[in-house]
């Protein structure tokens, strides 16, 4: 990312939030554009072609959800949603509308940077990078379908591999229950979340150091699962 800085468009009506987002992104090598309302944001998204959009849900003129829909109608640019207290239903709806991830206020900059990098990696990877996704001690080769944990090959059932595969293609980002069920069980078990819970339990036994205290395959209550791109060393942001 060093040769030409990624451009992030911040759409938020709070000047103080924009200020720290600018500082945080610029310190981490991004170039930042700001928009204080939806109209300016849509204009900037159209004409300045940013690499990433950070979109606040509660804007004074148009609701963030609608902006998301409008941008998604013509662009696949990664979009991270910021919101104060979003319900799980709302999060699922936003993800379905095409948001790459969400961050609930208040948050630390590290969390947002991690999500942003994951979203960017997913967006640009398809053509440029290798087929291997690594998440902490886990590495998944999407072409050869081999899964290594600390360098050792582990054996997964077909369904377990499907699960790892989907999570790995979204590494660092949340994937909804719906999406997982749809892609793993294409048949009539699609709505049955119990199967997913059991499958996750089994996969955790194979990839987590302590399956009772998962660090890699994280549960997002009421929304879905997330494969962490790196293991957190300390709880500090």
């Amino acid at each position, binding site marked *: 990312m060093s040769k030409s800085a990624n451009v992030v468009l911040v759409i938020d009506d709070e000047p103080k*939030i924009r200020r720290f987002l600018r500082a*945080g992104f610029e310190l981490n090598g991004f170039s930042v554009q700001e928009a204080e309302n939806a109209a300016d944001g849509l204009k900037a998204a159209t004409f300045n072609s940013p690499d990433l959009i950070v979109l606040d849900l509660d804007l004074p003129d148009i609701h963030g959800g609608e902006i998301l829909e409008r941008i998604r109608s013509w662009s696949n640019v990664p979009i991270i949603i910021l919101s104060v*207290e979003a319900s799980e239903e709302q999060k699922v709806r936003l993800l379905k509308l095409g948001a790459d991830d969400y961050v609930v*206020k*208040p948050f630390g900059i590290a969390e947002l940077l991690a999500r942003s990098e994951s979203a960017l990696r997913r967006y640009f990877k398809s053509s440029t990078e290798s087929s291997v996704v690594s998440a902490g001690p886990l590495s998944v080769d999407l072409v050869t379908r081999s899964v290594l944990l600390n360098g050792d090959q582990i054996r997964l*059932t077909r369904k377990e591999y499907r699960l790892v595969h989907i999570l790995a293609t979204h590494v660092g980002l949340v994937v909804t229950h719906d999406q997982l069920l749809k892609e793993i069980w294409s048949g009539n078990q699609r709505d049955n979340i119990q199967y997913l*819970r059991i499958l996750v339990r089994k996969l955790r036994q194979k990839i987590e150091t302590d399956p009772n205290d998962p660090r890699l395959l994280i549960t997002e209550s009421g929304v879905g699962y997330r494969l962490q791109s790196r293991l957190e060393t300390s709880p500090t942001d």
Partner: protein
Amino acid sequence: MHARHFLSIYALQLLSALICVGLATAGLLLLDRLLPISLFPVVYLIPVVIAATRWGTGPAIVAALGGGAASDFLFFTPFYSFRMDDPQEVVDLLLFLFVALVSGHLASRLRSEKEALRKRETELQYLYEFSRRLAACFTIPDLISAIQNYLAQALGQQAAFFHAKTEANLETPPSDFVPREVEARVRSMIAKTGLPAYTIFDEATHSVWLLRAVHSEATVHGVIAVNIGSGSRAAIAARTSRVEIILEEASLTLQRLDIGKAMDDAKLQLQAQLLKDALHGMLSHELRSPLAAIQGSASVLGSASPVRADGRLHALTEAITDEVQRLDGFIQNLVNTARVTTNSVQPRLEWADPRDIVSAAVSSRSRRLAKHRIQMQFDDDLPLVNVDSTLVEESFGQLLDNAAKYSPSGSAISVGVRAGEAQVTLSVSDQGVGIARDEQGKLGQREFRSARHRETIAGSGLGFWIATTFIKANGGSIEVASHGEGKGTMASIVLPACWVDDSSLTALTYE
């Protein structure tokens, strides 16, 4: 006693009529001295009319006869004798008696009609007063006292109201004049609903008691017992119908009160809803936005290399983050409280792994639990639970907060999930201050805080109450056990479990 009293009054009235005749005679004698008059009997009509209008027909007849006798004795020839010689005078006297009797009768009828009118007027006045009082009734007790007041005032009757309490019990009767038999019947009326009315004859006092249920459309509020006394069948029927009218009025008022209460409830609910919305908007946006700016800025500062290099500075940015999260937790509690008080907690049930719920709660509170040793113990084989996992996670987080708050830093907090046949228990045990015996019962109350820690440990007392409500909404319960003060506390969330046939799941997940 009553009859004798009546007789003596009647005798007095007759005597008064005769006195009137005497007075008229004295006046006539005086007048006769001054100037000669011929139509004496006409003057005697005066006492007749007076007696009729004052005391009724009987005294009027007496006055007429007395007047006739006096004029015969004093003014018709021969004087001072009842004998009559002149046939013309006999005709005069008879004519006088006839006119006197007719006018006496007419006058007394006028009197009784006037009296009836006056009585009706006072009755109307009482009724008017009664309905005014009914209109001013805002509670059931108001209404009851209005009924009692009216019955006593207008009918002079004994009335007692038996309040039907929720458990179909009776309030202590308001006075002791109610016969035991009547009271027993009232009890049976309240126990069995749908018995509208009873009439009981009390042998001891020879009086008739009316028992009527006082009810609105939805509920029976009680039974009113009225002593309508004794008397002829017609009199009792008349009094009964009056009592019925009153009770009808009262039922209408009760219905009005019911509607009023429903409206009040609705208004209150609406206000709570508005407050919730206002609180929600205000807390979420006005408070959380600045918090977001503070935490975000602190995190950017903390990640900048000069600050990172200096441990003291870095610790400051971490302290800011901790305090922001604490404030955010308070805001979350207030938002949750508003949700609970407006009954807008609607769990979205979904099959979840209890391990996930617990580990998510622990990791979301990792900063607050950093000073304690966390030990996790999970049963190997755990069923899934069908709950709103965010609500349960929030509740479990509250229990973790309490454990961290009320136990010394450095001590262990053990977190566990155990499976029973029909339930799953998520528990948090600490080695902290414990719970005194007298505090146990108050734990689930909103804003309960132990007096022992009010001075030393910050908190609103809302957390445990919120947790209890959330878990109830998920069909579970919270149990708290402690061996006493200073001996640690174990708080558990008990949720109904569902063991799914493992083989079918294995088949579908194994491929």
